[in-house]
Structure formats: C-alpha cells, structure tokens
C-alpha cells in the first residue's frame, strides 16, 4: 500500500521546454480560452480575498466600536449630569486612529441629537475640548464629496459657528448633496435670517429638499421663522412653491391677499399649493374667487377647491355646489367631494343633499351614501 502511495517525482517533473511543448500543442483559440478561464479563476481568488479581508475588518471594527461605546458610556453620562464636568476626559490613545475618532464623533453627535439647551451645550464643549471638531472641519477639504457632506452635517449638528465661512461656498456647488448640506448647515448656524440663501437660489428645490429645509425650520424658535411672502416673487418657481407651502404651514394670514391674487397663476402645481395654503390659513375670503375659477380649472385643482370648501364649511358656496350636482359628473370621487362640501356647510347644505338623495339617479345616490358614511 505504501509503495502504491509513493510518488516518483522524477516522472512528473517537466523541463520548461516540455511544458512549452505541452501548452503549444493546443491550437491558438484553445490557448486563448484557457487563458481567459485562468484569468476568471484568478479574479475569483482575488475577490474571495477581498471578501474575507472585508469581513475580518468589519468584525474588528464592530468589536472596537462596542469597546469604545462601553468605555465612554459612563464618561459621557458624567458630562451630561455632573455639576462641574471635566471636558478633557477622552483618552489620548483613543484619539490616535481615525476610526476611533469617527466612532467617538458619531457617539457625541448621536447623543447631542437627543438633547437641547445646557446639556447640548456641554456636548458641544466636549466636542471642542477633545479636538474632534478639527476632523469635521478637515473633512470639508476632503476630495470625496460624501466626506465633505458628512463634515458639514457634523458642523451643523454640533453648532460649529466658526466654520460657517468655510461651508458658505458650497451653497452654489454643482453637487446637489453638497448644495443641500450647505443650505441646511447655514440655516442651522445663521444667527439671523436663516433662509437668506433662498434669495439667491437658482437651482430647483425638489420636494425632498423642501422637506429637509422644513425639518430644520421645525427645530427653530418661532421668532426665527421668517415672513415667507418675501419669496412669493422669486424667479425660481420651486422657491415660490416652498414659500406658498410654508405660508400655509405657519398660518401666515398676512400673505392671504397676495395668495388670492396669485390664483390665476399659469402653473397648475402652484395653484394647487395656493389653494392648500389658503385652506390652512382658513381664508374664507378666497371662496368667491375659488368659485369663479372652478369651471376653468383642471380636475386636480377642482378637487383641491372642493376639499377646501369641505374643510372650511363654505356656506357661500352652497348654491354653486348644488348646481354642480345637477350636472352629470364624470368622476364619482369628485361627486363625493361636492357632497361632502355641501354636508359640511350646515343644515342648508345637508337638506340640499337629502333632496338629491330622494330624486337623484343611482350613481348619485351611491355617492351620497358614500359621502355620508363616516368610516369612508
């Protein structure tokens, strides 16, 4: 048995000439295919190495993160709740490596998000005293845009006002994320007029951008909320849309006359937003103009007008709405809105609906039953 397993190495040792002969015995096309196959297999091995290296790195980092979190849990608690906290508490060893510094920054920023007032100020002090703030500012010069954006986010959250000038140039950046982060940072750090960047905004503000600006506004004191009618004349339609939306959200009644005058706007979306804002401002004065505009409007805007009537309980629109019910409606959802507007207008409206219930066709009766049902 042992003899069988003994290998005679001299039998399988080839000279380079023999190897060449063996390889070149294959035709060219086969040699090419073999080379490609070997290339694929080599790439598999490289990818495998990257996968395993990545996994080991991730595991080590996760362990280190947990270690740092545990180590500083009590330290940060003392900063938050001690009467006279010491801000130089971070071990210099833990500030040597960028991963450790990033982890500590994330921890402090995360804590900061949950606090305001004095406690938040203490965390900001810790951020400065430990020197971690320098990383955030350095990140602004990083070649990668996502690192710059992350730096801006940290600067905004940790109130590093001294970095305002360094962030400002990015407000006109070609990269939309940098532009957006710069906007939010300037808003957060600006002492007065946080939305001044809207005056110069030439890029389109998407609904997503607007949502983010609104999130920052919500965190500001009421005194910092500007009069949004200032941007109703902006040349950027998306800035106008945002201003209209905010007028409604913050119930800025003083802008109602200007909004009513804008109801003839050529852009359907702007008209839609104006009607919504008027409704939020409970501007019953707009009812007459809305009735005038109804016939010439698109079905989407008509729905919005009816929704406003139903919310505002528009008594002055009863006759108009009742007349609408007389006409055959293509869209049953719109018929339901008309009926709901009538029902919300008080006893006169309700009686008008009841009359239709007795004499209307099946389709209208179905719509009335639907509109009257509180569950729908």
């Amino acid at each position, binding site marked *: 048995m042992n003899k069988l397993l003994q290998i005679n190495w001299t039998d399988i040792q080839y000279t380079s000439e023999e190897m060449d002969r063996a390889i070149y015995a294959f035709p060219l096309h086969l040699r090419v295919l073999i080379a490609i196959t070997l290339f694929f297999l080599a790439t*598999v091995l490289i990818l495998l190495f990257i996968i395993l290296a990545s996994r080991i790195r991730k595991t080590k980092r996760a362990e280190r993160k947990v270690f740092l979190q545990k180590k500083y849990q009590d330290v940060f608690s003392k900063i938050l709740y001690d009467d006279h906290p010491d801000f130089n508490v971070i071990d210099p060893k833990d500030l040597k490596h960028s991963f450790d510094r990033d982890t500590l920054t994330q921890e402090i920023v995360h804590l900061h998000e949950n606090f305001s007032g004095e406690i938040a100020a203490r965390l900001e002090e810790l951020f400065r005293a430990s020197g971690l703030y320098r990383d955030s500012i350095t990140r602004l010069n990083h070649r990668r845009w996502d690192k710059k954006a992350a730096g801006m*986010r940290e600067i905004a959250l940790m109130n590093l006002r001294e970095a305002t000038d360094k962030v400002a140039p990015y407000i006109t950046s070609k990269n939309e994320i940098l532009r957006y982060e710069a906007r939010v940072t300037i808003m957060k750090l600006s002492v007065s007029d946080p939305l001044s960047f809207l005056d110069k905004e030439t890029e389109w503000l998407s609904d997503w951008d607007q949502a983010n600006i609104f999130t920052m506004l919500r965190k500001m004191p009421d005194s910092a909320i500007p009069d949004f009618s200032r941007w109703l004349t902006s040349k950027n339609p998306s800035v106008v849309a945002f201003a209209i939306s905010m007028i409604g959200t913050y119930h800025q009644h003083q802008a109602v006359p200007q909004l009513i005058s804008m109801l003839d706007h050529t852009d359907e979306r702007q008209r839609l937003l104006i009607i919504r804002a008027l409704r939020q401002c409970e501007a019953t004065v707009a009812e007459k103009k809305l009735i005038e505009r109804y016939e010439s409007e698109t079905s989407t805007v008509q729905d919005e007008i009816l929704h406003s009537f139903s919310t505002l309980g528009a008594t002055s629109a009863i006759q108009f709405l009742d007349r609408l019910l007389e006409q055959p409606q293509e*869209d049953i959802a719109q018929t339901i809105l008309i009926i709901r507007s009538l029902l919300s207008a008080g006893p006169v409206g309700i009686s008008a609906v009841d009359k239709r219930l007795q004499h209307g066709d099946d389709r209208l009766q179905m719509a009335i039953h639907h509109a009257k049902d509180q569950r729908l």
Partner: protein
Amino acid sequence: MGLFFYYFTRFADHFILLYSGLLFLTYFILSSVSAREMINYLRKNSFIDYRDILTAPSAPSISIIAPAYNESKTIVENIRSLLNIHYVNFEVIIINDGSKDNTMQLIIDAYELEKVPYAFDQKLPCKNIRGVYKSKIPSLSKLTVVDKENGGKADALNAGINISRYELFAAIDVDCILEYESLLKMVKPFMEERGNRQVIAVGGVVRIANSCEVQDGKIIRVNLPKQIIPRVQVLEYIRAFLLGRMAWSRLNGLILISGAFGMFDKKIAIAAGGYNHKTVGEDMELVIRMRRYMEERSKKYRVVYLPDPLCWTEAPDNLKILSKQRNRWTRGTAETLWLHKKLIFNPKYGFLGTISMPFWFLFEWLAPIVESLAFFYLIMMAFLGILNMELFITLFFLIYAFAILYSTAAILFEELSYHQYKKKRDIFRLLGTALIEPLVIHPMNVYYAVRGNLDLMTGVKNWGEMKRTGFAGAKKAAIKK
C-alpha cells in the same frame, strides 16, 4: 450533405462562442455600471434621515394594494404587519381575489369588518366586486378590504387601483415582510423629481426570508436558508438585484419591478391601461407599458431602483414549486415581449427600444433556449463521434469559471454594501452554493424555462400557485436550530 453538415457545425461552434462572449461582455458591463451606481447610492444615502419625510407637508400619500388568494394561513398576521408600516399618510387595501378557503371570513372576524357603501369608478377593467369592507374599530380606519370574484393577480391589482384614494400606489404580495423604513425609502425618489422629469415607478430589492427569524411581522434575524434550493435563490436574487437592476436603473432602462413590491404613479398607470390580464408577467408588462406611454408622448421620465433590502419574501423550497415559478416567469417574459414586440430594436423608443428590450429578448428569454439547443447539439456531436473534446472541455470550464466569478462578484457586492449575512460561515456557504449552482440547479432552471415556452405554445395559462408555509414556520425552524 457532408458539406452542409460541415458548415452547420462550423456555424454552431462560432454561434455558441459568440453568444457566450456577448453574454459575458454584457454582464461585465452591467456589473461595472452597477458597482459605480451602488457606491454613489450608498454615499448619497449614508447620512439621510428618512424621518424628515414624516413631517413634510409635501410627502405624498400612498395606497398599499395587496391581493390575497387562499392565504388563510398567514393573512391576519400579514395585514397586521402592513398596518404597522412606518409612514405618515397611507391606506392598506387588501383584495380577496375569490379565495376558495376561509381567507375573507378570517379577515372579517379578526378586524371586525362590515360592508360599506363604497362608490368608485371602474377606471380599469376588473371582475365583479362583491363588496367593500371597513373596520368598526376607528383605529383601523386605514384598512379597506375588497371582496371580489377570482380574476388573477392583475385583475385584483386593478380592482385595488380603482378603489384607492391616493396619488401613489404600492403593489405588494400580501405575505411579504416590509422593512421598517421601506415606504419612506420608496417615496424619496418621487419627492426628488426636478422640473419636468417625472418618476413613474420605483422598485426595491426583494430578499429571501426562508430560515430568517420573524416576530410580529418583522425580520428580527437574517439567516441564510438551510435548504439548498432557497439558498441558490438567495444568490440569484443578489445577482439579479445588486448586479443587474442597479445598472439598468442607472441607465434608465429598467423594465422589471418585482411584483412582490413596487411603487407606481397612479395617474400614469391608469393612463397606460393598468395591469394586463392577458399575461402572467403582469409586473414587467405594466412597467413596459408605462414607459411606452411616456415615450410615445415624448415625456421625460425615470424608473428608479433602490438597492436597499426593502421586502422579504418566502422562496420556493422544493423543486415542484420552483418549477412552477420559473415556468410562470418564462411565460410572463415571453408574453410581455410578444405584446411589445414593436419596441424591440426600435430606435423610436430610445434606450428602451434599442438596449433594454433587445437585452431581455436576447439574453433573458433566448438564453435558456440557446443553452438547451447547445446541449442537444453537443450530445448529437458526441453520438456521431465528431465532438471536439478539447474544445468542449475548455468551453465548459470557461463558462463554469465565469458563472463562479459572477456569483463571487455578487457576494462581494453584498458584503461591501448591506452585509446581511453576518455569520462567518455564511460567506463560505454562499461560495459553496456558487460552485454547486451552475452544475445542479441552473440546468434545472433552464429545463423549467424551456418547459415554460412549450407550455405557452400549447396554451397553458396556469399562474403557478406558490404554496406558503408561513413565516411562523420559519421562525420555529430557526429557533429549533
């Protein structure tokens, strides 16, 4: 005859080589584009706080439409899971598509439903609706249940669209488990529309939930499936979603949003005609029709795909169900390509006509047919004793090496991006699966695809029911382990 045979074999050899080469090249390009797009996406969204949407006045409202057919095992839990989705303004519409079991009664009892006088326009064709139900419990006002005659998934989804109230709708398989922030993530591309470029549909990654631990309708621990068949599908899904669709999204050429979970602009979907009853590939067909609608009106639009794992679904765990599923997918693809044959290689439809549709025709639908013909060709050559053994073995290893390389690249993408399978041995199990798959499961999938084409030609219309074991079973299995 001899001369004909000589030229035939020469042609066949070159065709197989050329086709394989083109396929390799296409996949290489797609994965390169995908890698770039994935890096960009991850960087862009690494510090996004999706909760901003919850307070935004501009956040759109969403109708979630979930058809249910004979889902009595899991329906009550599934609805509860859908109602707990993290979003600001949404409704959940469950369509009982004429279930033969007690699905409807279970929902009525569990959620205290009663019939309501719901008035709606039948904007899209669908079978007779027997009744619309709402709950007596005010806190369940988001739930609407529609009871209708059986008409298939497309028909049920059309009924749901007719009933829905909001401007966006999400079509979802009722047994899917959604991630906590999935709706927030799906809605973001719609909110990012700028100027006149409209987002008409958004799709997300569907992941395999077999062997995962599920509690209260949520995935609490991700496990790699223990059985080989679902594990192969994990690999397939990672390849298809992370390497394929991500690239198509970047190129704005995506034509398939998984029927398991997708979000659509309702106005465009209705204008395009809604879901088509004539195909079992209604998900792909709708996206193509919506794109076609936009192209024919020269409107700027995008179909967006998100690489985040948003939805978890139970995959077939035995060959019988797998064969039915793959058979249906093939028929769906073939039917859809046939319905829109006008678009293939048609430059009038831009990227859709010149690249997306030809790719699906040449490399998705045709690939299994070419593979099986090549297989028979080799057998014939071997039988006649004229098989070039050296070439055959070399080609075999070349294709096998490429298959492993492509799967390994997919595993790398997964590892560097979402890192769902965290156990050390999971990577080795996935790599092991990548070695086995081309030799064992892939040939079977090719066979099922060919059968699908044959069934289509012989007029088989079966949707291919997926028998669910339910996630409660998955949880138990995981705990037992």
